[in-house]
């Protein structure tokens, strides 16, 4: 019933640490690429959402 016993039975567990680090890195790089490739007008439009007047042409 001890908690660690459940996990002890997973084989080759060290791969998990590496694996999760990899998942993260790939995810993050993907997001970086997306952010820089995203359309400029779109970004500007989104950034104005909090403002009452969120149409850039009226600013």
């Amino acid at each position, binding site marked *: 019933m001890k908690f*660690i016993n459940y996990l002890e039975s997973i084989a080759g567990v060290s791969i998990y640490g590496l694996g999760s680090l990899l998942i993260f890195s790939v995810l993050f790089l993907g997001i970086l690429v997306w952010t820089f490739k995203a359309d400029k007008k779109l970004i500007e439009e989104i950034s*104005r959402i909090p403002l009452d007047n969120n149409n850039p042409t009226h600013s």
Partner: protein
Amino acid sequence: MQIEQFSYDNKTVKWFAFATMLWGIVGMLVGLWIAIAMYYPPLNLGFAPTTFGRMRPVHTNAVIFAFVGNGIFMGVYYSLQRLCKARMFSDLLSKIHFWGWQLIILSAALTLWTGHTTGKEYAELEWPIDIAITLVWVVFGINMFGTILKRRESHLYVAIWFYIATWVTVAMLHIVNSFELPVSILKSYSWYAGVQDALVQWWYGHNAVAFFLTTPYLGLMYYFLPKAANRPVYSYRLSIIHFWALIFMYIWAGPHHLLYTALPDWAQSLGVVFSVMLIAPSWGGMLNGLFTLRGAWDKVREEPVLKFLVVAITCYGMATFEGPMLSLKSVNAIAHFSDWIIAHVHVGALGWNGFLTFGVLYWLIPRMYNTQLYSKKLAGTHFWIGTIGIILYAIPMYWAGFTQSMMWKQFTEEGQLKFQFLETVTHIIPMYVSRSIGGTLYLTGALIMVYNLYKTMAAGSFVANEEAEAAPLPKVIPVHGKEHWHRWVEKRPVQMLVFSFIAVAIGGILEMVPTFLIKSNIPTISSVKPYTPLELQGRDIYVREGCYTCHSQMIRPFRDEVARYGEYSKAGEFVYDHPFQWGSKRTGPDLAREGGKYPDSWHFNHMMDPQSMSPGSIMPSYPWLYENNIDTSSTPAKIRAMQTLGVPYEEGYANKANADLMNQANGIRVSLKMEKLETAKDKEIVALIAYLQRLGKDIKGEQTAQK
């Protein structure tokens, strides 16, 4: 396209705003109280609920979960509706959320004051409240996601990402860290023991700072700063990177709370690396905030809201610069266990969370009451008093932490420790006094704000439902610029976020798996035995009274600590500690090897009146331990619970445990009697002495200890 009419719910926002102010004042008052009790121990009143060890969890919980918690909900309920151009999903859920959270706060305060605690910092609440938190959190989640799904704005503004991340991660942290085995209606034992418990706890603790005190408030910053300055954020791209980098790195940083402890080295190093990297996104965020105001500094001078936001963001920058520094092992060696950490935390709490909350309140209340702020001048006064308060709080604490830590480490030429522990305490008392003055100023400022906002409300008339109109979402989202693969993401924001966070959750849990697994992480030491029933009861009293808020039980492998406290702590010594009690602050000396250091009679006198044994001590006295009887009716259940958790008591021991307990208690009674100290053997003080006398003894003089 048909324009739809609807209204924003201001009522829930108003209630959360009131709760924020109320609990803020309560939390600060309790904080001020214990700040004074630190140099004036009679303020502990010799009464259990008002002693430091119980008040300190009340203070931290009130400030984090009641003040900042309600502040988050206030800001989220206001901004989410406007960012989604939709009313909150369900008025009923909003109501349940509000009242549920307040009930949790009330029961938290009551149970903590009466000594019902799990003994894990920032997660002290007992299991029924943990369950209630989970339920209310789910209600909040449904309400939030429901609103996002019925939004009239196709894009999700970055603030909403921060809110979603907060929701998902806090849910995960809370559930994982709260694994506990109930023993009775208000008592449970952590499922994990020792090193593992510590790792889970600080993975939780650190991420609670990250995802309760930071990400939701960053969401608020990204909404209210542009609002108040009436201009978009400096770089929206940077805000996206800020978001993802934070989520990505924070999850790994927890082990920096456990440097030089018995935690395995690889976990410590991972924690350090990620903590240091965190400085990049944090400062990106801070600069993004400050640059938003470029060319508008004249406005900052005029507008109290902006002043508060500027100081808040600056404090965010300071705290997130300091955090990575504190993760460096050499800095940590000095700062950990000292008042330095208290200073660090309060730059965050008073500066970042407090000032941002004040700024948002000053902005929201006049608008919801359709009027102007009653007095800009008073708000300006609040701003200055608050700022000076922060400075008077933080600088003396940095000074105290640094000085005391240096004193701990000094040796004479003959190689003896230069200072007694208590000397290092009395030396920094003036700093404690100054800290409480800073706190008083800060609290005064908050009271001025409450008055100012009260006058504002009295002058205005509340708009419970704010009319708004917007077109519903088109079935086909218009293409912006050239067709791009991000359109797929655009159309499925919720799915994308959910999937990303599943990845985050997996990552966080996997970080801990190896620690649970590799047996060699926790070398077993054959001489380490389970606690006797009396010691176990004593340990529960130790937990109940919050001794861990002032005492550590973790000797780090430094020359001075080994000289002062004895052989450094080994991972294998804690395998039966549910929960671990390593502590995080040494207001009093480390107790990991307290066993056998003094005779029973010393402890008996010391716990009754610490000043009698240690003149000048600031430890509270514990007279009620001499009157309360040990709750022996709970012994069998406790033993059984420990067996369930894997502690190797022999089969059927639960029923014999009380006999052993009485035997051992009688031994202590007799030893006290020989020193002419009278007590019945079934008093709580006897159990506590048994526990203190056991601490660290298992491997005393053991040469075979591993690692």
